[in-house]
């Protein structure tokens, strides 16, 4: 509970800091706030909210539950934002007038994300998704004078609003069929239906909820907005979108399916299987044909949604089972690698003004550090050992095979071979192609950003070498 309160309060304070026109103070302030909230969040580990639950009343507890599951996923989104923030320094340097608003929106969106991972009530899920989404609509369009950014915001908003409508409709139908918003009451009501004639209403409702959340996590066939929105959005916010939004979305998804809807798996299981297959196929094939690194990362984020959907299939039983475990590890490894990749891409594109593979050419010579970090990130996203991405995929695949879906894992393995093909392209550009004319100058990176990149690379490698200390956590 306390993290939500702290983020909201400091978000508002941050807005007031903006009035003082002191851009320099904003970044350190936001970093300190996030570090603080991250620490406070961890206090609840194994204490089920009793430490920071200062404002907990039975009424609140019905809406939000703090348990190890929510603490773990809140930890990922907070940590991701914390390591992402240093890459906003170019805004500080450029004297961006709206910087305070950006940071505040990020903090507010984290409130939404934390609600999404700790909800116990469908209304809280909806409110969480909306808080997160509305902040993201604004941030997608934050580059006001850029047509692409405007287009991204409009596209994201229109399609997002539509999907929200479907989600809400689904929630309403489920409520109509069961008479409750509470997750565990919902599970009980589905297990022993009071009125069998409402069964089809329930199933339609479940399906609409799956579609609504599927849109938010960019699962095919509801992913069409993703490449355009990701490409048009300023890179810094794209990184946030593809990590925090996705992690929170999948944590919410898994909780919904595992806690509230195990009785309706006859409806959602085949749907998710079909979505996973489509997502893996369209994401990977789409990424393979791109020439822009940023657009490739957008499609790659679709493909990772596919692997995470596989994790949902493995989700039977408790929130502490192998599925939750696998999704937790995967989200963490994916977030860290994605922040690193977008971080490098942002630094390169800020200076070279291009986001395609050719813009990365020669980076190994001019900036060995950036090239190394990008390589580690690409290997991790591709799922090659020594990096966290490998164990993420490994845990997911093992959990899915254990459920008997061998053909699905074979398909996913084939798709990850396609993945290796396109993740190698930036590496080839950096190490084996000479810089384009005019791009020979090294990228200017300040020490703080370098340190963050090194930290991200180390985190990826530690996840890949010593996965044991996190793999048994949930």
């Amino acid at each position: 509970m306390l993290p939500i309160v702290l983020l909201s309060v400091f978000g508002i304070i941050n807005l007031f800091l903006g009035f003082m026109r002191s851009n320099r103070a904003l970044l350190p302030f936001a970093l300190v706030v996030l570090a603080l909230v991250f620490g406070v969040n961890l206090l609840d580990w194994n204490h089920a909210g009793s430490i920071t639950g200062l404002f907990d009343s039975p009424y609140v507890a019905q809406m939000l539950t703090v348990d190890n599951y929510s603490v773990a996923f809140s930890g990922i989104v907070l940590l991701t934002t914390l390591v992402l923030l240093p890459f906003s320094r170019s805004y500080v340097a450029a004297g961006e007038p709206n910087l305070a608003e950006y940071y505040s929106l990020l903090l507010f969106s984290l409130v939404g994300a934390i609600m999404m991972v700790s909800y116990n009530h469908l209304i809280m899920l909806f409110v969480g998704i909306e808080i997160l989404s509305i902040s993201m609509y604004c941030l997608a369009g934050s580059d006001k004078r850029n047509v692409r950014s405007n287009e991204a915001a409009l596209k994201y908003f229109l399609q997002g609003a539509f999907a929200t409508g479907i989600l809400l409709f689904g929630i309403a139908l489920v409520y109509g069929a069961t008479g409750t918003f509470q997750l565990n009451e919902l599970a009980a009501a589905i297990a022993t239906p009071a009125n069998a004639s409402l069964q089809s209403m329930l199933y339609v409702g479940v399906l609409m909820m799956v579609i609504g959340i599927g849109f938010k996590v960019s699962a095919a066939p509801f992913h069409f907005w993703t490449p355009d929105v990701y490409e048009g959005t300023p890179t810094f916010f794209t990184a946030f979108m593809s990590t925090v939004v996705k992690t929170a979305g999948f944590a919410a998804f898994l909780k919904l399916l595992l806690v509230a809807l195990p009785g309706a798996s006859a409806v959602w299981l085949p749907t998710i299987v079909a979505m996973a297959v489509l997502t893996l196929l369209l994401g990977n094939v789409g990424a393979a044909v791109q020439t822009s690194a940023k657009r490739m990362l957008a499609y790659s984020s679709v493909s990772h949604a596919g692997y995470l959907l596989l994790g949902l299939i493995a989700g039977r039983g408790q929130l502490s089972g192998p599925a939750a475990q696998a999704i937790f590890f995967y989200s963490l490894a994916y977030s860290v690698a994605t922040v690193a990749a977008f971080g490098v891409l942002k630094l390169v594109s800020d200076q070279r003004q291009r986001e395609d593979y050719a813009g990365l050419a020669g980076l190994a010579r001019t900036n060995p550090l950036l090239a190394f970090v990008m390589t580690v990130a690409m290997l991790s996203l591709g799922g090659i050992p020594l990096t966290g991405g490998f164990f993420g995929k490994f845990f997911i695949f093992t959990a899915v095979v254990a459920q008997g879906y061998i053909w699905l894992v074979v398909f996913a393995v084939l798709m990850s071979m396609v993945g290796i093909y396109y993740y190698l392209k930036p590496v080839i550009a950096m190490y084996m192609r000479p810089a384009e004319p005019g791009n020979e100058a090294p990228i200017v990176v300040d020490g703080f950003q370098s340190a963050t990149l090194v930290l991200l690379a180390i985190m990826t490698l530690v996840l890949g070498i010593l996965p044991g200390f996190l793999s048994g956590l949930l």
Partner: protein
Amino acid sequence: MLTAFLVFFPLAAALLLHFAKGSAARALALGASFLELAVAVFAAFAFVRNGPAGFDLNLNWIPSAGINFHLGIDGLSLCLVLLTTVLVPIILATAFRHEEYENPGAFYALVLFMQTGLLGVFTAMDAFVFYFFWEVALIPIYFLAGAWSRHERRIQITFKFFLYTIIGSLFMLAGFVYLYLQTSPMAGSLAAHSSDIQAIYAAGKQLAASEQSWLFWLIFAAFAVKMPIFPFHTWQPDTYTESPAPATMLLSGIMLKMGIYGCLRWLLPVVPLGVSQWQQLVMVLAIIGIIYGAIIAIRQRDMKRLIAYSSLSHVGLMIAGVFSLKAIGLQGAVVQMLAHGVNVVGMFLVADAIERRTGTRDLADLGGLTRRTPLLSVCFLVMLLSTVALPLTGGFVGEFLLLAGVYEFNMWAGAIAGLTIIFSAVYLLSMYQRAMLGPDSAYSDTITDLTGAELGMFVPLIVLVFWLGLFPGTFLHLSEPTISSILTAVGR
């Protein structure tokens, strides 16, 4: 403890290299590889005295999944550990000869990093540790082969190599995951399964023949690409030819052995029924590879490409020996792994020495070099004769045992496989003749002989050639217990 040092010391040295420049980097890299060699030799003596027990390292890695970081050294592992640690200093020294390499410190660091991966593969006693190091070894060699090559098609060539090998490896991983899910946990473990080698062996053994049949191909895919066996070899000639000399040596001298070692340790005992089902098909492919590689080698003009195809042909014989499932064939494979590692590195060293002096590897442009280069000629000839399997050399012992194994399996297979010796005499002697003898070429009068340092690189190789040829028992004794336990597991 010794095992952990052997595996991770090169990595530590590679990281340290980041802080060294110029000649300090060379001294550090070479010093580290010599220290590694010394420790390996010490380990070998300790092994002979005390047996394999002291080398077992079994730590919790991912306790929730029952995956342990399990390394160990038995006689088979030790042979390959020794091969790796002997060859790496020579490979590094080859890299020192190439002044034109940009950022040489990173090159040496990657070679040492590669050594960690290779030694990890040869000592892993857990399926996932094995897979982990298997992939770890791929990353440095990809950069070594690609980033320092000057060939204009290097990107496509190394890309093909990378994709081929990783696709093979992913199949192997899928096979291991399937086996892993059939295992029962080790005693005292909380996890539901275990990926320890003994657990995998036990799980594989109780599978039905039909399951073992497709599992065989999943696991064999990785080894088949790595060795490579016909028809999975198409990445090999280009990669061998266009990579920088040290990378080619790593690929052909050591990395290729990963595939054969993998068959011995992680295929034959794991899916014995699958092996006997596909034994004949693999034999046929191996023998096709022998003939195919040899015939193409005869027609090559590029020295490196010729050696690459010759290697393809010799690997075919090793695979045939392994899949003969006869003790003598498997033992031959062990000796030949060592002999081939030494021979092929020696041959590429010769090709590199000639290319650095003349700027070409094209046999049509060479000729009459021997007049000014007596030392090079002698070294060339020794390496060549060992590759041709002349008695007294390591190549002879290896190929003789291999052929005996194949002959025991099937007389006709043995007869056809035996052509490898005749063929290799044809193309290798003709290579020697065209490069070193024959009419004078533009380089005959200007070429310089081996320097002292270069000779120093050849001496250990030559010593090993004769050691393996005269006293193969040293290594046969080491690997014998492992080989017989593998054969027991296969049921022969």
